[in-house]
């Protein structure tokens, strides 16, 4: 549907993609920090198993974050 010269379908797509990508990228990086911080705390407390699990969680979140960034850069090209 076009109102005046504006394609409202395109506009709606920009809105939802932006919200999803913007909030998603911040949430994923926050999870990286959460995993890293908890891994550090667990390591200091001598809980090596938990430290390893949290580090793996942080790594997983970072990979997802990196994929999101790569997708964004690809979209820009």
């Amino acid at each position, binding site marked *: 549907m076009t109102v*005046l*010269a*504006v394609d409202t379908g*395109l*506009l709606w*797509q*920009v*809105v939802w*993609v*932006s*919200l999803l*990508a*913007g*909030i*998603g*990228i*911040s*949430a994923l*990086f*926050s*999870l*990286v*920090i*959460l995993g*890293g*911080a*908890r891994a*550090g*705390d667990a390591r200091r407390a001598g809980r090596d198993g938990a430290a390893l699990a949290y580090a793996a969680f942080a790594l997983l979140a970072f990979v997802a974050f990196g994929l999101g*960034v790569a997708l*964004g*850069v690809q*979209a*820009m*090209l």
Partner: protein
Amino acid sequence: MGDFVLWIVVGTALAFDFTNGFHDTANAVATSISTRALSPRLAVTMAAILNFAGAFISLEVAATIASGIVDAELVTPSIVFAGLVGAIAWNLATWYWGLPSSSSHALIGGVVGSAFVAEGGRAVFGSGVVDKVVVPALVAPLLAFVAGGIAILVAYRIVGRQRPGPVARGFRLGQVLSASLLALSHGTNDAQKTMGIIFLALVANGSLGAGADVPSWVVVSAAAAIAIGTYVGGWRIIRTMGSRIIKMDPAQGFAAQGVGAAVIMAASHVGFPLSTTHVISGAIMGTGAAKRVSAVRWGVAGNIVTAWVLTLPAAAAVGGLTYAVVALFGTEELGPIAVSAALLTALGVALGRRLIAGRTLTAEG
């Protein structure tokens, strides 16, 4: 068009590109400097390098600036020249007052004003102005405001119970990445506008065919001009965006930049033209307001929004006035030469007065 006038248009386009770089440095680096994720000099150096690199990534949108907004058949080199002068004047005025505003809208405004004075209303497409300027100017800051607000609430929710030290360090590290993405996308999008303007001037001069590739020297000079402008750094605007809208913590800085980069990339992906300045400013306000509404200095925010509203008409007025002065000289040759000589003389006088007063002229003022 004679070669001398062609080079005047090329030089003016590169001067606009330079002001675009230093005016928009703040978009990529202001939040990183404010939260001390990067030192000021390192931040602008990194942004300059990535702006330069970004200019080589894509040439997809070169020559599309102002298309669909003014009738390309009626545009002459004098109209482009006057439009560029209007855009440069508005960029310098908003830099002087430390107000972030859209360089793209200034360029469009300048060309619309000069085309209107030259050819009347038939040269300007109203629907194009609504489609490419008015609607994006309303959507970009609101969208970024909402996304920034939600993003920071989600981030606080996730890391809220962790020790502040590692969290702040983590977000500062993230800001280096998000600032890099913003600088790269700025170089990709904005340097192409200058390439497009120079390309059009070369085609109008008969130096190139309309279907030719953008010459390498155009790409390199546009990339260099925007990178040098970025390196000089518009410190007045960096101060406004980094610390005068909100006093931000590293999480807010990352959320604002991350949301900004995501919104710009999403908009680029679907081909919707959004201003980087509007997006980043809106995201900064959103991350501040989500924490506490009174955390945003609404007076400063109001001044910024006023500058956004005035960008198109003010640049159009200067562009139109410049074209009127150019037209006074009666020919396509003499007009741009006389006006550019007068502007260069005024610039020389201003520089001379600064030097005599013992002050260097920098982007810091």
